[in-house]
């Protein structure tokens, strides 16, 4: 699929084309999601994706990278992430080593220099070299700008990072450039990267960041869409069982749970059931495999008591 260079022009021509292409890469999506990618591509704007965990936020970025056959550069955010880890760092070791070398050859360099002023100006030339791109260790954001053919930049879970980091991103997101005090401003080489930011909404993202992005909210899919997703991801599962298990998951989402099962859990469960050669949902079977879809003991206990009714409802 991705080995032949994809026909970008055709893919990005319309929302429908994008949607079918995403589906060809086993990412089943709603029109809203396809529209988001379409707009992001044409307007060259980052997409901020929000939604409950496990609805395919990160997956969308990965699939898009696959679809456009572009490298995916990923920056996982966490508390304490700073520019040294996100943008660039000086190769201190290398700088030190070169200083040593320079020290030894200092005499040669300064030979013939007339007076102090000229010596200093000669040394200055070296000073500039030490702070050039040669000595720069690029981190994800800078790598993304330097990618020759463009790339997909995924800034994952941006809500986990600090406020300071958010502000750091602003320049990158609005102008696709980064300022490095010693060197100047770095601009995107050719194509600016297509940026995806994901957030689980553990805190509000600042308005300044939101303003620079398209905002896509991915909710849990409806019955029909989720069935198609399962079909794409676990094609071996029989249709009847697929219908039942998706229905069951939807029933669960209606309950008051600490963490409701997401699509990724549905897929895992489908694989589990397939492995167990299941043909139809039964209360006992569900009870045994409940830990695949529910991740809190409290939730499991809550659901256990209503398991029979839930299962019979799913079978309807």
């Amino acid at each position, binding site marked *: 699929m991705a080995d032949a260079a994809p026909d970008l022009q055709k893919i990005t021509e319309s929302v429908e084309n994008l949607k079918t292409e995403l589906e060809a890469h086993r990412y089943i999506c709603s029109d*809203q999601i396809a*529209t988001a990618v379409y707009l992001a591509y044409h307007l060259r704007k980052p997409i901020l994706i929000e939604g409950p965990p496990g609805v395919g936020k990160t997956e969308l970025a990965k699939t898009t990278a696959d679809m456009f056959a572009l490298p995916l550069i990923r920056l996982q955010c966490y508390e304490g992430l700073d520019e040294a880890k996100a943008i660039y760092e000086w190769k201190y070791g290398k700088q030190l080593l070169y200083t040593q070398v320079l020290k030894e050859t200092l005499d040669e360099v300064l030979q013939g220099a007339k007076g102090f002023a000229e010596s200093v100006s000669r040394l200055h030339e070296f000073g500039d070299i030490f702070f050039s791109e040669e000595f720069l260790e690029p981190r994800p954001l800078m790598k993304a700008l330097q990618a020759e053919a463009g790339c997909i930049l995924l800034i994952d879970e941006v809500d986990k990072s600090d406020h300071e980091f958010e502000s750091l991103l602003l320049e990158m997101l609005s102008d696709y450039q980064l300022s490095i005090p010693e060197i100047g401003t770095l601009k995107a080489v050719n194509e600016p990267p297509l940026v995806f930011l994901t957030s689980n909404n553990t*805190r509000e993202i600042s308005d300044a960041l939101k*303003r620079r992005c*398209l905002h*896509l909210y991915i909710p849990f899919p409806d019955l029909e869409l989720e069935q198609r997703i399962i079909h794409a991801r676990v094609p071996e599962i029989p249709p009847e069982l697929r219908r039942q298990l998706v229905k069951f998951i939807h029933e669960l989402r209606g309950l008051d749970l600490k963490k409701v099962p997401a699509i990724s859990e549905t897929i895992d469960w489908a694989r589990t059931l397939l492995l167990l050669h299941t043909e139809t949902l039964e209360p006992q079977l569900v009870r045994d495999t409940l830990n695949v879809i529910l991740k809190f003991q409290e939730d499991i206990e809550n659901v256990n008591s209503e398991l029979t009714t839930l299962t019979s409802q799913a079978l309807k």
Partner: protein
Amino acid sequence: MERTLTNFIHALRSSDVRVSTAETLDAFNAVELVGYEDRGALKRSLALVLPKTADEKETFDLCFDQFFKFTDIRGDRDGSDAEDAANEYSEDAADGQDGEGGAGGDNPPTGSATDAKGKRKSKAKSKGKKAETTAAEDADAEEEDLGPGKMSEPSSELARLLMNDSKVELSIATAQAGEAVGVRDIQVFTQKGLYTRRIMEQMGLADLNREISDLRGSRRIPQRRLGQNLRQRREWLREQVRDYVERQFLLHADADGRRLREELLRKVKLSNVEQRNFRLIQDVVFKMAKRLAALHSRRKKVFKRGQLNLPRTLRHNMSYDGAIFDLHWKSVKIDRPKVFAICDVSGSVANYARFMLMFLYSLEEVMPKVRSFAFSSDLAEVTELFERNKIEDAIAKTLRDYAGGSTDYGQAFVDFKKHCLDDVDNRTTIIILGDARNNYGDPRTDILKEMYDRCKRLIWLNPEPRNSWYVGDAEMRKYTAYSHQVEECNSLMHLERIVGNLLKTVQ
């Protein structure tokens, strides 16, 4: 089209969706890309650009549906034939795109719409004459029966528009007239009639009326026939314009009106809030809370200059060959305020307690550690109620279970001491809400003093105005001595100020 979009954004703003200028530009770019042809695509694209939270998306959906209502001026008369419904559908869709223009643009019809119009015209001509005149007979039975036949040509501009059966042009004319009389400035619903009339006048109602009366007075039958017809169409137009004004009102004025009401509600005494305004007040509380949360969501650090963070410093200076010149200091993250709210929920103060609890729990994001207690005579902790239920339900349950009974502050303090005085530490802020009217019981200031000594801050909020604090059975004088701060608090504005200060000083 640009006008339409800016108008739409204006409408969004008035329903509390924050749209910046930059986003407006984005919207234009997006629309340029997807065009106006496909309503679904337009909506999806704008939904990506304009609203930026889940709440805003909901508002956006509503607003979009209302604003881009494509059946702007529907010819119910000529489109009623069932057999035509199917083929009409496609045309209506095409008409629809132009209908947007009707929502406020003074733009020329696009190519596709002109096509559709052409088709419609020819069709209307063929079937229209029969259908309309028969309809006319049905409606105006008392009018003289002129029978089907030739009608004379209308003379005034509005009449021509009406007889043209062109919904698109009519809707554009309506919108233009609406703009001209400034329908967007409409403020209260009683103005609807006024604006309807003004728009009709702007569209040339006077000419039309004159023409109709002339025609009806005429002796020639085709002219009388036209007169009848025009009269019906005038009524129909009046209805359409009324609809249009109604929509504009909902889009623009309703939001303004709501803002006005909210503004008032912030200042009104909370005990005077009527039941029917509770919903609105809740919205206001949530909104205020959200603003405060946004303001204080940053967790600050305090750097203890002078205390070196040795491990961190060493790690960072490794790359400098171990020469320590990049120093890192120890820092402490400031804790979120730990709040104990003790609320008197006896009859007179219950309403205040309701809104204060609502406020505190809406601030969960920045104040995760709220414990609440309710009492009228005996005190009980209700924190768990709030954890398990929605805020409104929890408040209702609290009031149901603990209100009633005569107030006894002494007993409440005794209970508090028994249950959780040990949990009060030097980071705790205690907020007591009550009127301090103790029915001449023992005020137990000794316990209050104990609380005062242990906690970081003790704030007493009294809903009564200051001058009645020391009257009758009120023990405010005694309690004031053992509070860090006493405040009069009987409106949302007071609440906002106090909680805002709390967040500021504690953080």
